[in-house]
């Protein structure tokens, strides 16, 4: 029996990518299929250093398509499998991610966003929101957690392995280059000691017995002969997704009750947004803070309430409105004003958000 990676709660100081590798092992991940792309490489580096000591496996594939499809294979064979990618790699992985949606495969992927379109920058961005939530041909039947801190990278990577196997939708941890590369303190823990329960991995293929003799064969496909057949299958998926969405959607908010202006953001930008709102509140200004943690599914009820109450929503993101589109879709019909504050591919500071909100108050 290989020794446990984390035996007790401990404060550590790590890069975000290292956090992801540790969290994946803590969550019981058994195999990683990966392909290098900046800024997520170190997830693979740490995994390959830690994995052999804990009886875990790794395969470096020939490209991202292969990394995504081998991850699908790993899950079908009954292992908790995951991958990680960014930017153009995320584009290529939409093909296997779509298959995972079609076959209800609980694959976990960590996305550390970089600039776009195309190769762009390798450092930082929030421009993979549309791609990660709705990329691929299909309806975006996915779970996407957008993290803001290293603690969240740890917590939500663990959670990704929990919910993906519970609900059987592909699950993403959406970080960014800043989170991937910077070092920050956090508390790591053994999820078991916290009472976190994981669904066991089940085999899609290779169950005991001879197919056709002792059991039915598992026949998995993503091609349907007629439109009605696909329609029927999808109705079941949509129903499962809607039921799951209520249980899975998460958010953080404060000071929204009496706020005239609410600042909306996600991921690492929320750190600046939070601080700016706190500063404005201290000055007695009626400003609130709201941050969806799940970008897919969104906390729809809370967003609708927010839009009904506030006069203005300031939407702050390091992209040209990808996050704003998701919000606008949910609050359609609301009469509050939407104030965009978009800086695609660039970091946003507390001072900038503070100044913007002051300007529109």
């Amino acid at each position, binding site marked *: 029996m290989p020794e446990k990676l984390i035996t007790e709660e401990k404060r550590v100081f790590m890069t975000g990518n290292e956090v992801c590798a540790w969290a994946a092992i803590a969550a019981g991940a058994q195999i990683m299929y990966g392909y290098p792309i900046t800024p997520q490489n170190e997830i693979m580096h740490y995994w390959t250093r830690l994995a052999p000591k804990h009886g875990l496996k790794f395969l470096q594939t020939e490209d991202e398509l292969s990394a995504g*499809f081998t*991850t699908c294979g790993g899950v*079908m*064979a*009954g292992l908790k499998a995951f991958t990680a990618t960014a930017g153009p790699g995320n584009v290529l992985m939409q*093909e296997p991610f779509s298959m995972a949606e079609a076959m209800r495969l609980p694959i976990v992927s960590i996305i550390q966003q970089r600039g776009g379109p195309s190769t762009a920058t390798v450092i930082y961005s929030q421009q993979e929101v549309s791609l990660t939530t709705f990329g691929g041909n299909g309806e975006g039947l996915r779970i996407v957690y957008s993290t803001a801190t290293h603690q969240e990278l740890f917590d939500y990577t663990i959670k990704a392995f929990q919910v993906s196997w519970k609900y059987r939708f592909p699950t993403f941890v959406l970080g960014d280059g800043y989170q991937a590369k910077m070092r920050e303190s956090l508390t790591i823990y053994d999820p078991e000691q916290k009472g976190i329960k994981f669904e066991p991995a089940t085999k899609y293929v290779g169950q005991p017995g001879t*197919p056709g003799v002792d059991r039915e*064969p598992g026949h998995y*496909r*993503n091609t349907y002969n007629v439109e009605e057949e696909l329609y029927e299958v999808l109705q079941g998926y949509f129903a499962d997704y809607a039921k799951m969405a209520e249980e899975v959607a998460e958010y953080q908010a404060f000071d929204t009750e009496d706020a005239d202006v609410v600042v909306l953001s996600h991921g690492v930008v929320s750190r600046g947004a939070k601080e700016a709102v706190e500063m404005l509140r201290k000055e007695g200004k009626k400003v609130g803070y709201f941050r969806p943690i799940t970008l897919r599914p969104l906390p729809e009820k809370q967003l609708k309430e927010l839009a009904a109450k506030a006069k203005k929503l300031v939407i702050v993101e390091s992209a040209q409105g990808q996050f704003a589109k998701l919000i606008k879709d949910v609050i359609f019909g609301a009469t509050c004003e939407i104030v965009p504050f978009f800086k695609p591919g660039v970091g946003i500071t507390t001072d900038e958000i503070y100044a913007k909100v002051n300007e529109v108050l």
Partner: protein
Amino acid sequence: MSVVQPAMPKSWRPESKPHKFCPGCGHGLVLKALGEAIDELGIQDRVVFGCDIGCSLLSWDFFNVDSVQTHHGRTTPVMTGIKRANPDLITIAYMGDGGGYAIGSQHLVNAAARNERITVILALNCVYAMTGGQMAPTTLPGMKAETAPYGRDVELTGAPTQGPEMVAAIAGEGAYVARGTTANLRQLKGYIKKALQNQMDGKGFSFVEALSACPTNWRTNAEKTWAFVEKEMPKYFKVGEKKVPGAEQKEGQ
């Protein structure tokens, strides 16, 4: 009077027969050889069968074995992922020449180079069949296809891909590579059995190409179809074993 039923491999799934391939298609023959090989090796309980999009997808429920139908050219990585996760399973990636030599060639090349312990069986019919008979990497020089209506010009489009020769050149020690034909099913079954045995022995990558027919897109009758498979195709695609673990390379068998 008793009715004589043709013998079906035991691993075939009777519920999905008659199969969905066009009359005269070579897939049924290749899958028969594969079915008999599975029976004779007694591995029905641990085979995982994977197929591409394209005509090969019609085999998604062909066998009483666990099966995964995936995307164009991606069957190789899916079977690799399964094998890496559970090495006790016998994984078979089944595809056409489009899936293996065009869109999926990168996966085929790298799986061979890594000597993945999987078996790839590729049906070669010189065209993209499911999409309506466009030119494939394996369309013969001068052969007409929807996107080569005046015949394939090798000056413009290159020469037909020699798959087994390529795989034999890059696969590592312990790999098994052969080219069979639906015109000689006994031999083809022998190659497929060896390819599966090679995986069972954990020696290395195994690959069998099967010369196969597409009378629909070739627009040939039975006689011309067989003439093409038996006489024209082997002129370019030499039948025989290309790489055998622990043996000298044998050709032209």
